[in-house]
Structure formats: C-alpha cells, structure tokens
C-alpha cells in the first residue's frame, strides 16, 4: 500500500489491461483507464458491455483474471478495512426492505466509519427528512434508492461508486439527484458512475468511457466523445423552395457564404454536430455490441 508519487499521485483509479472471463466468455477484455482525483468519470455502455463487472472489480467485490488495478493506491483484491472506509459504494441492486427506520439504518452505518458524517445532514442531503422515522419497508423504490445513496455517502468517502444510481427515478428526482452529485463533485469527491442514460453522463461526467463487448470503444469528455467536436456538422436552413441540409467539415465558412447569399438572416438556420447519442450508437455498433 505505497502511496503513488509524481505523475500518478492525482490518480484515484488506475487500471491497466484488466481482464475477466466468465466460463469461456470474456466479460472484460483488456481495459485501460485512469480516473483523476476530483473527477466525475462515467462508464457508459449497453447491458453486458462489462460496466458492472469492471466496477465490481474496482470495489473489491470480484476477482480479476488479469491486469493491474489500483484504487486509492491499493489493489482492491487486498483492500482492508482502512481502504474500505475511504470508498463509498452504491450498488445496482436496491437495498432490502427492512423493519429499521431510515434514521436507524443511516445512523448505524455511520458507526462503521472513522470520519462519518452527521446522519441528519446525510438524510437532508438525499431529501428524506420527511421519511426519517419511516421503516424502510414502507418506502417507495425511489426513496429506498436514496437510502442506498445516503449509505454510500455516510462515511464521507474520497471515492464514490454509483452503479446506475437513478434507474427508476422520476424526472424530478433525477434532476435533484444530479444536483446532489454535482455538489459532491464540487466539494472534490471523486465519482465513478455507470449509467445507461446518455443525458446523465452528459450532465454529470467530466469524462466518459464507452464500453462495448468488454473493451473501451472511446474515452473523452462528453462534448468530444469519439471526435464529436471535430466531426462533420450539418447546416440546415429554410429556403423558399423548402428545407435544405448540408453536411460539411467547415460549417463556419459555409454559414458565412450562406449569409452573404441571403444578404442577412438565414431563415431556420441550425448547425448541429452528431449528438452524444449518435456517437454512442455508432461506437457500440462498430464494436459489435449490438447484434
């Protein structure tokens, strides 16, 4: 458990050549990635792409078949209690219905950690003040999910894993959750997020890795994923004879020329780059994840 120095000291997660097989099939087939401290990093990909397997290896729940993994400077396969006290985990599966109340559950979990936060503060942060005295069994699925998030946060982790955290949330709850995550990130927490939702990755992540068939198909900022920022743009406008659209590498020049030909405003002008969803679907199709 040596503290990394120099160029890697600002790395919360470092993965090189990670491999995991189930039976004869490779679930994770050589993944390299780095997550910097303070970064919100999203793993995006279809079901079966290897997101959860990768995250569970990072969390110390699963063994790996090959590759090097370092999480907060420690190999998760050998992470002890001190290491666990520095990470928070919100797993994909929702917590079990229990006869404990929200407050009892969160207060109890706070006793496991050396630097626990005030349970009341956590309850307020996930918006469960009104349910604090309710038993978990009586909560809705979305409310129980917020308890999961609270339990992941109560130890004030340096690194938080969120595995598909907003599945089953209504749009309002999802927005509120995004605000919470943005606040945590603003306070310097490193967050590794897996999600199906492109808008979620776009709203929260500093960088996104797209996983397809156990490999990283692309990695970058949401705005630049797979060369999105420099990809050909579509310029569309309304001409007297109907709508026009042109695909061009130089949209600025094209629009300037178009403006000159119109002698001013171009009716219905729009310049669009491929959306994150376009690039995502392209990437996973290219990589054979959709069959």
């Amino acid at each position, binding site marked *: 458990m040596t503290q990394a120095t120099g160029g890697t000291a600002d790395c919360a997660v470092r993965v090189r050549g990670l491999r995991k097989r189930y039976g004869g099939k490779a679930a994770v087939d050589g993944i390299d990635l780095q997550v910097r401290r303070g970064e919100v990093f999203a793993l995006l990909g279809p079901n079966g792409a290897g997101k959860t397997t990768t995250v569970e290896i990072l969390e110390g729940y699963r063994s790996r078949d090959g590759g090097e993994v370092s999480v907060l400077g420690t190999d998760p396969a050998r992470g002890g209690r001190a290491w666990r*006290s520095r990470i928070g985990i919100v797993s994909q599966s929702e917590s079990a219905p229990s006869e404990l109340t929200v407050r009892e559950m969160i207060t109890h979990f706070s006793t496991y*950690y050396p630097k626990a936060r005030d349970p009341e503060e956590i309850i307020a*942060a996930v918006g469960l003040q009104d349910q604090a005295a309710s038993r978990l069994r009586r909560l809705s699925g979305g409310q129980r999910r917020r308890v999961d998030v609270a339990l992941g946060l109560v130890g004030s982790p340096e690194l938080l894993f969120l595995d598909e955290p907003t599945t089953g949330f209504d749009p309002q709850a999802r927005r509120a959750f995004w605000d919470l995550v943005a606040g945590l990130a603003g306070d310097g927490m490193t967050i590794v997020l897996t999600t199906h939702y492109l808008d979620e990755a776009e709203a929260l992540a500093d960088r996104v890795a797209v996983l397809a068939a156990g490999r990283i198909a692309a990695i970058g900022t949401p705005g630049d994923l797979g060369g999105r920022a420099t990809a050909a743009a579509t310029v569309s406008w309304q001409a007297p004879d109907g709508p026009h659209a042109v695909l061009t590498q130089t949209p600025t020049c094209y629009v300037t020329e178009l403006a000159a030909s119109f002698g001013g405003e171009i009716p219905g002008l729009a310049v669009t780059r491929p959306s994150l969803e376009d690039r995502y679907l392209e990437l996973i199709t290219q990589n054979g994840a959709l069959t």
Partner: protein
Amino acid sequence: MTTLVRLTPARAEAVTLPSVLRIGALRGMLEIKLFFRQRESVVFTFALPVILLVLFGQIFHGKIGHTGVDFRQYFIAGIIASGLMSTTFVNLGVGIAADRTDGTLRRLAGTPMSATAYFVGKAILALVVSALEVAILLAVGVALLGLQLPATPGRWITFGWVFALGAVTCSLLGIAVSCVAHSARSAPAVLNLPYLVLSFISGVYFVFSSLPKGLQQIAALFPLKWLCQGLRSVFLPDRLLAVEPAHSWELGRVALVLGVWLVASLVVCVRMFRWQRLGEQ
C-alpha cells in the same frame, strides 16, 4: 428531494477505525431490535415451546418407571434444550441465509465493518433470545407444571456451562448449515428438518431410554441428545438415573460431544462462509 443541503467537505485528519467489539455490540443491539420487530418470528420462537409445554402437561401424566419422577418434569428439560436449539441453530441459520439472499451481507461487505463484528452481533442476538426463552420456559414450568428449580450451586453451575456450550455449539452449527443452504427460501427446510427429527429422537418428547436402541444410537451422534441429558442432570433428581441409558448423567461425555460439534462447526464456518468480499475470508 426539493431541499438539498450541500454537504460540508469532510475533514482530512488521520483516522483510527472504530473498534470491532464496539461495532459488534452495536450490531447486536440492531439485530435484537430487528428480531422483535418481526412479530411472526417472535411469536413463533417464544410461543411454540410454551404451547408445547402446556399441551404436553395436559396430555401426559404419571411417573416414569419406579423412579417416582413426574414425566412432565422430564420433558421440561427436553423442551428447554429443544427451545435453545431453535433460538440458536434454526434462527441463526435462517437469519444468515436471509441476510445473504436479500443483499444485506453484500451491502455490509462494501463497508469497513469486519466480518467478526457481524458474527459478534449474531452471537449477542442468539444469546439474548435464548436466555429469554429459557427464562420463560422455566417460569412456565415452575408456575404450571410443578418444576422445582435446582437447589444446589453445583447444579446451577452445570446449568451455566451446559447452556453456554449448547448455545455456542448450536449457533455455530446453524451458521455452518447456512453456508450449505443457498437461499432464504430453502433455509427453513434445510434447518427445520434436522431440528425436528433430532427433537423426536433425542429425548425431548419421549423418555430417551424408551426409544428403540437404533434411534438412541443415531441420536447419540448429535448434540441435542447430550444437551437434553445435561439439562436433565440439572432439573431432575438423581433417582431418575435408574432409567438413564448409562445410569449416569455422563457430564464429561456431554461436554466432549458438544465440544467436538463446536470445533467441527467452527471449521466449516471458517472454511465455507462466503463473505462476498475479497482480501478477507
């Protein structure tokens, strides 16, 4: 989630982990709270042996052989032993299988809580529930069935170690069996079947020496027979030795058989318990 409070940044000083025993004690309190909130299990655990005790007290009368010992007092010792096995072996085995199936174990594995603290909590639960069970059964026995509490300190000491050894052995055995039962759904069957069979052949409901020799020999391989015998030595007069198979309470052998089961169960627990986390057994 309308009122979002921003979390204040965590403090960054050096840390010491909370002690395992303290967390174990807190887990014990939590387990007890959970147990008493599950009303069905409370009723089943405490009411069933009391009902059996009262029912058998109505059905069976008379003395055992020429010993002059009331049969109702004979089976009080047995029902206390079998109650102890139910609060430890059955309850712990079913409870741990449920924790595994509903994700509780997995969630705990993701925290810095140690496995030891988890088992300390379960042990506290088993001990508290068992002590309560025994107290209730003794009270009912004394009040309704003419049971006489032991008069000599020696017998109380025997009671103490037989209870403790029996509770620990049956608890570990329950945990060991829960490693074999894969789901919460199969656990009650996997645990209750041996429990019920042993109850019938170990001298709980029938005078042990009246059972067929073959069944006696099978029962003698398992802990419940010895637990019953140890408790009979506490609550019944030595006149009864005339109908004990060995004409002796065989307390040394009680300790030996329970001890062997304790060690064997512990080995199975340590080797088989799947904690679902790496870097730790």
